[in-house]
């Protein structure tokens, strides 16, 4: 019941906002902040009362806050939600990030009611996806998150927002339908004909038909890979990110990408263990390619937001490397595989916090100068020291510096994967170096040297936005360095949104036990299930 409240409370607030268009915009955003805060408090309460258990626990047993209702009895699909060590950290991350976005958007001038309502709707969709224990319910929320994000990008984006939103919708919708086909395959392949994840994981379908199992895994893998996104399917991501509003980008990178990786841990691995073992090397390879591809392409970007977007591909690649290594049963012991899985899960949370912060910070750049181009900014450390400090902390966290959550995550992924896939791991470490280089380069370009701020007295440029230039992949060819020093530092609401995310990332980097206690039993359960 508590979990159901957590899931649907934001939706309720959204309905209230839509039903009362007369209340002032400020109040509407206030309702949003309040709803998100209450939701986060409820998740926190759930976390406090959650018993992670000793030894393997989760996925098929040790589920807390379960609720189960029939929905479509003819295909045995139902409203089945519950929480275990896999979903709880992501539920908490969702609560934190949505609250941060609400605070960040306190002064949203453009149709604040609809904006707040859409984000609340998205929050319900994301919470629901992480809490689902039924494939169809998972799909329902998964799809709704796409719909919500489409409207956020199309309605509040800049530049070529409509086109990017369409690309995002079509791309991820293809993925979600592949996922649906895979789910139907699981349903028809299972003995008791059910969509229930717990039942399916307890008694995996298609165990004795490797071809069918492989094809179903292929469909599910495709669907999740588009969402994650992994190397050949990532092309929607940079466009969607650059044109989305800052809060939308933060949610897209921080939460929506996790829906994909979470699907691997929750669905692909426990329900199709045999197929996952057989094809784990593919996951490792795709993960490593994503790591390198994301890192090198990010290095080549001339646009802050696009660069951060590509580092997401890189970071999600580590997750896949860890999860793939967890499936290489023959070449690694259970301990190593558990470490890899824990690392992958840790990376999801860490990436959500740090990339969320980075995207919100890049939104600050847009709000000041309507440009993300590196060459139109410079020397910001002097006029905007707090901004510079926050950006630097987020960047160092993101490149995996010890003391931040990203280090714990990547370290565990590499430790766990080294035994199973030594070559892949060594190659992936190169990704860390490149990421370090590109973040340092970004810091240098943005914050050192003489202050350069895009001139705001350029109305046609303003109206046009960076859209046309970006059509051919390059940015802002016309360099107009202005030695103006008008760069306002972080406003209090922006700082209030970003700083807690960074503080959390540091806490998770210094005291990882908080999160590991919850993650480890569930990761052990996943590894045991995959090892069957």
């Amino acid at each position, binding site marked *: 019941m508590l979990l159901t409240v957590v899931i649907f409370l934001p939706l309720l607030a959204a309905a209230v906002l839509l039903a009362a268009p007369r209340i002032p915009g400020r109040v509407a955003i206030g309702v949003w902040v309040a709803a998100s805060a209450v939701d986060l408090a409820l998740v926190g309460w759930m976390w406090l009362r959650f018993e992670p258990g000793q030894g393997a626990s989760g996925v098929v047993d040790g589920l807390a806050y379960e609720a189960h209702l029939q*929905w479509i009895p003819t295909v045995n699909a139902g409203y089945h939600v519950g929480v275990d060590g896999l979903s709880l950290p992501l539920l908490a991350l969702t609560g934190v990030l949505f609250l941060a976005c609400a605070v960040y958007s306190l002064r949203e001038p453009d149709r604040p009611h*609809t904006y707040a309502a859409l984000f609340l709707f998205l929050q319900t969709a994301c919470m629901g996806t992480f809490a689902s224990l039924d494939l169809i319910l998972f799909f329902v929320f998964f799809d*709704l998150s796409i*719909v919500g994000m489409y409207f956020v990008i199309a*309605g509040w984006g800049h530049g070529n927002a409509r086109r990017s939103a369409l690309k995002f919708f*079509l791309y991820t*919708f*293809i993925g979600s339908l592949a996922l649906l*086909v895979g789910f*139907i395959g699981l349903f028809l392949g299972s003995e008791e004909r059910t969509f229930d994840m717990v039942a399916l994981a307890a008694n995996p379908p298609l165990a004795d038909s490797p071809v069918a199992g492989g094809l179903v895994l292929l469909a599910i893998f495709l669907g999740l890979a588009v969402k994650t996104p992994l190397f050949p399917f990532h092309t929607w991501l940079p466009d969607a990110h650059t044109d989305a509003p800052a809060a939308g980008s933060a949610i897209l990178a921080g939460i929506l990408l996790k829906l994909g990786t979470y699907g691997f841990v929750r669905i692909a691995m426990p329900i199709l263990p045999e197929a996952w073992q057989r094809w784990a090397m593919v996951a490792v390879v795709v993960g490593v390619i994503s790591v390198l591809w994301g890192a090198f392409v990010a290095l080549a970007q001339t646009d802050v937001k696009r660069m951060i977007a590509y580092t997401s591909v890189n970071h999600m690649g580590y997750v896949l490397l860890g999860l793939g290594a967890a499936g290489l049963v023959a070449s690694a012991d259970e301990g190593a595989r558990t470490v890899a899985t824990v690392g992958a899960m840790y990376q999801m949370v860490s990436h959500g916090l740090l990339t969320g912060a980075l995207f919100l910070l890049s939104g600050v750049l847009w709000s000041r100068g309507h440009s993300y181009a590196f060459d139109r900014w410079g020397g910001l450390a002097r006029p905007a020291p707090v901004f510079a400090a926050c950006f630097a902390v987020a960047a160092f966290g993101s490149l995996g510096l010890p003391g931040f959550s990203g280090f714990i995550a990547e370290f565990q992924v590499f430790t766990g994967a080294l035994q199973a896939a030594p070559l892949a791991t060594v190659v992936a470490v190169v990704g860390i170096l490149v990421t370090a280089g590109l973040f340092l380069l970004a810091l240098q370009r943005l914050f050192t040297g003489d202050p350069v701020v895009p001139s705001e007295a350029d109305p046609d440029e303003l109206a046009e936005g960076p859209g046309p230039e970006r059509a051919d992949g390059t940015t802002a060819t016309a360099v107009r360095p202005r030695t103006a020093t008008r760069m306002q530092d972080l406003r209090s609401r922006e700082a209030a949104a970003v700083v807690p995310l960074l503080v959390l990332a540091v806490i998770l980097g210094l005291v990882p036990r908080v999160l590991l206690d919850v993650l480890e039993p569930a990761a052990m359960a996943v590894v045991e299930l995959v090892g069957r």
Partner: protein
Amino acid sequence: MTGMSGGGERVLALLPELLLLLGAVGGLLLGLWTPQHRQWRVRLLVTAACLASVIAAAVALPEPAERVFEATWVVDTTTGVVRIVVALGVAVLVWLASPSLAGHPRETEAYVLMLLGGLGSIALAASGDLLLLVAGYLLASVPLYALAGFAKDSAGVEATMKYYLMGAFVGVLMLVGVAALVLATGTTGYLDLAALLPDASPALLAVGILGVLAGVAFKAGAVPVHFWVPDVTAGTTPPMAAYLTTIPKIGAVAAAFRLLAEPFADVPLDVPLLVAVIAAVSMTLGNLAAFNQTEVLRLLAYSTVSQVGYLFMAVAVAARTDLAVPALAIYLAGYAVTNIGAFAAVAATPAARTITDWATAVGRHRWIVVSLVVCLLGLVGTPPTAVFVGKLAVFTAAWDGALAWLVVVAAVNTVASLFYYLRWVAPAFAGVPAAPSMREWAGSGPRTAAGTAQRTRRGVPTGLLHGAAVMSLLLGLGAGWWLAFALST
């Protein structure tokens, strides 16, 4: 030869249909003695007849399946679902059409024809005999020709001519098909056909099956006999377009379902494959043709062609899996609700023909856009709407019936369909901030007239649009209840 009492009981098995017929005859008589400006009484009577028919059908639904009138009329789950959906659909569509018909010299006739067409659709779905199928085909066709051209403008007349000629041609094909099947087996009843057809001559069988399927495919608007759909939809008024693309399709799909489940179940030809190909081609061509449409009615017309493709997936596996009947039950209901909702959105702005016009016309009405988004994304199959549950059920049934390739085709097509629905959604959604400029226009010059005329007509269609959107969500969320109710036999 049954006795009088037995006949009486069997007549009551057709109570829902009788109520519709009574409503039609009563409406006609009432209309004769009602002054022009009070013809709304007929509307009330027709609505009451439809609702009574729905109640009668709902009461009869849990009873075991039976065949009445020498097994020509089948009363089972499929028939029951069609009875309810069609009667409710006609009741709603009568009201959707009312703003454009009110005060019309032939208002009564329109309502009565709508009722009779609905009866024809039910007859198609319920027929357990080829001759009744032909009769149902005619009853579901002739009133519709009149309705298509009801406005008597040039576009409507052209649409009617196309519809009529095509209908007559396919009707002949269907008769040839029926004749071939009779020649092969000497009987027209489905049960006898099911027993005799497997041993019939393959050539006659092929001609017969193709002819009969052509007839139902025409009424359903499936490829390759779909050419009437876009022209008729775009040529007639939006409420009539909603009627023509909803009511006969339901009956025809159910008829095709029964044909595949009963007489064609064990024939030596691969009829399911044929239907699967029809389904695949319908959804693909419908989607491809809808891509570049700028007129909302034509876009919706092609969308209905593709929707029939998904519905035919359930038809293809009618005899192969138990999942087919529930899939049909939920998809038919979901399709009817969502499609009527989408056409109601068009009817709400009768002057707007293109997508841009539409977006401008509704500019400031946020809720209309929200409901349209629900209906259009519903047609895509976005959860948790009714069509999503329908698609899920249909995909599952098709895969279970060994047509996994069709599921993949349908999934790809669903993505493709998203593209053109978004072409409508995006300008409508982005049109919201354009409200100030809208207001400027409304205050200046010749645009005003059209603007105000639209606003006065908005009430009923807008209400129905919202109702359909809510219903689509409720039916999706409450799919379990609907199926439990529909399958309660």
